[in-house]
């Protein structure tokens, strides 16, 4: 029984953290706001670290790792509010590895030459669809078999949307499914889409943990330095308690995310429920961190001049993305209250 990332996962995370501390500062995130696409020269650098191809099989130039490593890395990406579509790369890679391993996409993603976007059933918008080289589209109508298509964004109508977080480039994607783009259909496609959605939700949960920690760190630092009425505001109990509450939320969300990574990586039957829990807990931690960070920063936090908003807005965006809390709660409820008896303490 061990609930902790392994040494290698840990070291990998640290490497990414150090890289992002230098190459994805708040200034870089701001720059992504102003640009057409968040994807920049950094993408190739991330590829050199192995990050874009983390879950790409090793015979396609990837690292062939799984959800535990992915989570460890995405937590660090969240700490930096990395705008690049890493979650999408991971989700697309899983599908391509299963249904289109020989089309060359996998190696190009791993080498940082291609950017993938995804649009799964239940998702309204695709991130970075215009800058992407491919969009993995899943359709799951109620009355027909599920299908997965890999499409060229050039063949789609893309309608740019405006996210509260300008670093997120969102698009409505219109396209006509044709046989040439079809890579999978039927039950296998449906299963793969469900797993892909879980991977996206899990990755996003890990990202939210990082965002939470970042907002907490920023706020602790601010509370130690800001003086009012002659004293540092961090000496006030109400301020301390706001931050303590955030830490409690974070500390309890983290093991939930880790366990979801564990379950998903091994395809355990509880994985969907575990992932939903992870998304709910991480989303709540990030939401509380954002609100309390804003409150403790006061008016300066209420501006776009201060960096805090870059992190808060990502937190709000990602809490809604990949299934919002009510969707995930309903899924946990269905699992717990369905026809099977309430789960006992796991027998394992």
């Amino acid at each position, binding site marked *: *029984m*061990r*609930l*902790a*990332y*392994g040494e290698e996962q840990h070291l990998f995370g640290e490497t990414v953290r150090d890289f992002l501390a230098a190459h994805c500062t708040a200034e870089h995130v701001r720059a992504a706001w102003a640009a057409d696409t968040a994807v920049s020269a950094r993408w190739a650098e991330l590829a050199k670290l192995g990050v874009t191809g983390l879950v790409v099989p090793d015979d396609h130039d990837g690292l062939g790792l799984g959800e*535990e490593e992915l989570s460890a890395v995405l937590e660090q990406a969240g700490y930096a509010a990395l705008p690049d579509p890493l979650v999408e790369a991971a989700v697309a890679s899983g599908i391509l590895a299963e249904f289109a391993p020989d089309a060359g996409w996998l190696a190009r993603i791993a080498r940082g030459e291609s950017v993938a976007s995804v649009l799964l059933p239940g998702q309204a918008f695709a991130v970075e669809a215009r800058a992407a080289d491919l969009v993995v589209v899943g359709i799951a109508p109620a009355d027909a078999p599920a299908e997965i298509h890999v499409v060229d964004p050039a063949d789609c109508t893309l309608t740019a949307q405006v996210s509260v977080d300008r670093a997120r480039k969102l698009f409505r994607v219109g396209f006509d499914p044709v046989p040439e783009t079809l890579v999978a259909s039927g039950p296998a496609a449906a299963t793969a889409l469900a797993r892909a959605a879980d991977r996206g939700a899990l990755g996003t949960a890990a990202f939210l943990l990082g965002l939470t920690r970042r907002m*907490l760190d920023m706020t*602790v630092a601010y*509370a*130690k330095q800001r003086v009012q009425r002659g*004293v*540092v505001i*961090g*000496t*006030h*109990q109400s*301020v*301390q*308690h706001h*931050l*303590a*509450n955030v*830490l*409690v939320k974070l*500390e*309890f*969300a*983290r*093991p*939930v995310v*880790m*366990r979801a*990574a*564990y379950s998903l990586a091994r395809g355990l039957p509880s994985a969907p429920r575990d992932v939903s*829990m992870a998304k*709910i*807990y991480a989303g709540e931690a990030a939401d509380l961190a954002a609100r309390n960070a804003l409150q403790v920063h006061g008016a300066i936090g209420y501006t776009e001049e201060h960096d805090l908003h870059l992190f808060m807005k990502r937190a709000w965006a990602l809490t809604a993305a990949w299934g919002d809390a009510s969707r995930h*709660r309903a899924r*946990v*409820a269905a699992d*717990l*209250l369905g026809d099977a008896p*309430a*789960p*006992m*303490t796991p*027998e*394992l």
Partner: protein
Amino acid sequence: MDLEFTAEERQFRQEARAWLTANVPAEPLPSMDTEDGFRRHQAWEKRLFDARWAVVSWPEEYGGRDAGLTEWLIFEEEYHRAGAPGRVGQNGIFLFAPTLFAFGDTAQRDRYLPAMASGEEIWVQGWSEPEAGSDLANVRSRAVRDDAHGGWRLTGQKIWSSRGTYGHRLFGLFRTDPDSRRHHGLTYFMVDLASPGVTVRPIAQLDGEPGFAEIFLDDVFVPDADVLGAPGEGWTIMIATTGSERGLNLRSPGRFLEPARRLLDLYRRRGGDESLRDAVVRAWMDAEAYRLFTFGTVTKLLDGGRIGADSSVNKVFWSQMDVESHATALRLLGEYGELDAGSPEAVDDARWLDGFLFALGGPIYAGTNEIQRNTIAERVLGLPRAR
């Protein structure tokens, strides 16, 4: 990560389950805070002890099984799952014993541990005083040297001692240096509550039972053999005990998993709107999150790490979770929620109402949650001391 249990651990679980299934009383025992209930809980402790399930994590020489942390957690899961009685000896076994193992001498361990494990001697905590609640360093009860008899004479007053009404021995802090202030000059004593000069006044808790006691000490003699650690070191030793109380010792996940599961069952029976459904699901998820968090803590400990102020994070979480899940149960029960035990139509013999009243103490004892948040802010997050 490896969230599987080993074959030995699974075997241990089966063994515990089998014994509990065969031995847990079919009918719940009366409250341990009644005279009859106290005796019957003591008898249950003895039965556990005789089968070597009373103190699984202790060394075998004291009646334990030398079980590791993971096995202990497994045992606790099975214990609560089986609906076994609350542990009347818990303050001794889970809070005081780890301190006694760490700071006691061999004679003290040999003298106290077996009787504690078998339920023969029930220990009570003596920290709080009328003027020392959250500010424990304000302890005023004092101990004066009695060289002629090789010991100390204790005078003062303790209050809110759980199980104090029927318990046998008290561990607590007394001021041995009359000129000392705050956390200096305090000494950790073990006091026989049958000693001359001790007066115990029961206090009814929220549920009406005499769960608390006020304990008056008037020139009570305590021999040197019953001083834990060196005189003047009481504060440091106390920190170890209260850390156990906030941390995982007193509140194993098993304790919350079972009520969470029962809550799901209650919802299936009674139904409710979406907000109730979400609250029920939340209660289950929180218990599960607590379990995972605990596995994380255990991993850290097994890797040689320590838990210090982190136990405050733990305490805030479990105490809130416990209140919320019981409040949810009462919402599910609607009008029946107010029915107390003994009422003809009380659902589940009012155990949810009982549990709610009990849970409300959680944010107060083991250091109030306000104090825990101060600790988190200052000791974990590194904020400057509150003014």
